[in-house]
């Protein structure tokens, strides 16, 4: 775990992440400027740090309703604005970027932040980015595997000699700058089904698993498959961290949380997927066994501990700003997370 800068003695890590979505607030119909939205993210990272949150992540999405396409630049600003909190991508769409360039960027963020940078590499879920950035969609699975392998190799070796199918070869290449302590934690972003989790396991790379809603038990097979694959491949699963991610909204009461979150969740899904979040499913979400993190602080703590029992993850990442959530609500969420949720879950999950 040390290699990944995780200390199990301190208990589970709690992080915030944003996709940098830029939507109207469905309640007021108002949409802040892209500039204001980016500044909000930087401000939120500072508040998160003050609240004792461990990690802050920003992702890239190359489509309408998003604003952090250049997520590494935003992460650079966050690196400068903060001093303790870990900084990660959530996620970097590695398929449409060059792994050398990605490594250069994150090594630089690591230097600016004094050793706090991490990469979460994903495939992306939209075809738009592939067209925009000139990557052939037909090969998208293989392109990602190849690029992730190269990224991992760059991280592990000083001089990189490499040959692949989708990029010019490298011969004794020095990738500079080097991160502060010589390497970065690199995670693989994994969606619901186990296929991608198995690939992460075979590669022996930490897994960041999205558990966006529905019964938490449904994601357990991915966790098990990941650890089994890692073991088959000769890695020690106990040395590989797992993080889970979910949409998150906490308020004073569960009813309030439901009322306040729903318009954002529904509007956000409508905008990017073209279908809202079913109310009936949302009504079931406060149940401890459902993965979607919505409810009072007590409810959220119970959910997190239930999931910790299920998955034994080392980190949980919450998405609290999806669908035009106004900044005062984001602040309120951060406050409750810092004051009540983190102390409780750390107490129960610290490995003695």
């Amino acid at each position, binding site marked *: 775990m040390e290699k990944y800068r995780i200390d199990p003695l301190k208990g589970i890590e709690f992080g915030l992440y944003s996709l940098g979505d830029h939507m109207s607030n469905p309640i007021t119909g108002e949409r802040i400027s892209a500039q204001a939205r980016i500044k909000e993210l930087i401000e939120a990272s500072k508040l998160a740090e003050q609240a004792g949150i461990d990690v802050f992540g920003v992702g890239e999405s190359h489509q309408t309703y998003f604003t952090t396409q250049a997520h590494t630049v935003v992460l650079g600003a966050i690196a400068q604005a903060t001093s303790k909190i870990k900084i990660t991508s959530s996620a970097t769409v590695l398929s449409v970027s060059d792994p050398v360039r990605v490594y250069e960027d994150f090594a630089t963020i690591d230097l600016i932040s004094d050793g706090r940078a991490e990469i979460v590499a994903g495939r992306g879920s*939209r*075809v*738009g980015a592939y067209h925009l950035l000139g990557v052939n*969609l037909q090969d998208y699975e293989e392109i990602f595997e190849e690029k992730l392998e190269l990224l991992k190799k760059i991280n592990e070796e000083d001089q990189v000699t490499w040959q692949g199918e989708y990029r010019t070869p490298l011969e004794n290449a020095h990738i500079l700058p080097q991160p502060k302590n010589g390497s970065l934690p690199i995670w693989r972003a994994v969606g619901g089904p186990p296929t991608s989790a198995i690939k992460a396991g075979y590669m022996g790379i930490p897994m960041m698993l999205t558990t966006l809603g529905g019964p938490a038990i449904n994601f357990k097979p991915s966790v098990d498959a990941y650890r089994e694959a890692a073991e088959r491949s000769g890695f020690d699963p106990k040395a590989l961290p797992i993080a889970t991610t979910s949409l998150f909204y906490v308020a004073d009461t569960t*009813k309030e949380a*439901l*009322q306040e979150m*729903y318009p954002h969740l529904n509007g956000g899904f409508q905008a990017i*997927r*073209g*279908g809202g979040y*079913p*109310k*009936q499913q*949302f*009504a079931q979400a406060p149940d401890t066994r459902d993965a979607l993190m919505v409810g009072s602080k007590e409810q959220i703590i119970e959910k997190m501990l239930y999931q910790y029992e299920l998955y034994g993850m080392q980190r949980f990442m919450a998405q609290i700003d999806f669908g035009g959530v106004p900044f005062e609500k984001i602040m309120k969420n951060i406050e409750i997370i810092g004051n009540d949720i983190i102390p409780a879950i750390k107490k129960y999950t610290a490995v003695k």
Partner: protein
Amino acid sequence: MKIVALAGSIVGSKTKTAILKTVEILSQKYPENEITLLDLAEYTVQFSDGRNYLEYEGDTKYITETIMAADAIIIGTPTFQASIPATLKNIFDLLPVNAFRDKVVSSVVTAGTAKHYLMVEQQLKPILAYMKAHIVPTYVFMEEKDFHRKEIINDDILFRLERLVEDTVLTVEALKIIRIKKDEEYGF
């Protein structure tokens, strides 16, 4: 309410005749509704490649978005090799998981022989159920002898089409009432 009438084949005349008749009955009985006819023969639709429906372009985007915005869809389908035509299956493939949630779907089906009368039960309904449609249980099955030169000549079919239209519209209205009741209960 928004109703889409979909003619699911790009060849032949029976399905188109049947769906046009359905639209005619619908507009006479319920003129207040917004009815859109999608005759696949008039569009160039690409094969599904798994992307989100909002990301297609041209005719494909128009078709998927029109269907997704509808409260009810009346599907007209011929019977090809004991099943629905590939053109219709492609429309389903273009749409997202659970695409028909909160939508009512009913069907009119044509075939060359009466031996296909269970095709909808065996082939179409399982797909609609998987896509979470509220399926109108009865459908109208028509065969060669019910048509003459692009006209429906069997009065029984005409009566059944009227009942199908009625059932479709009333099911949408009933669903709306259910939704209002549930929303009151949820309180969010």
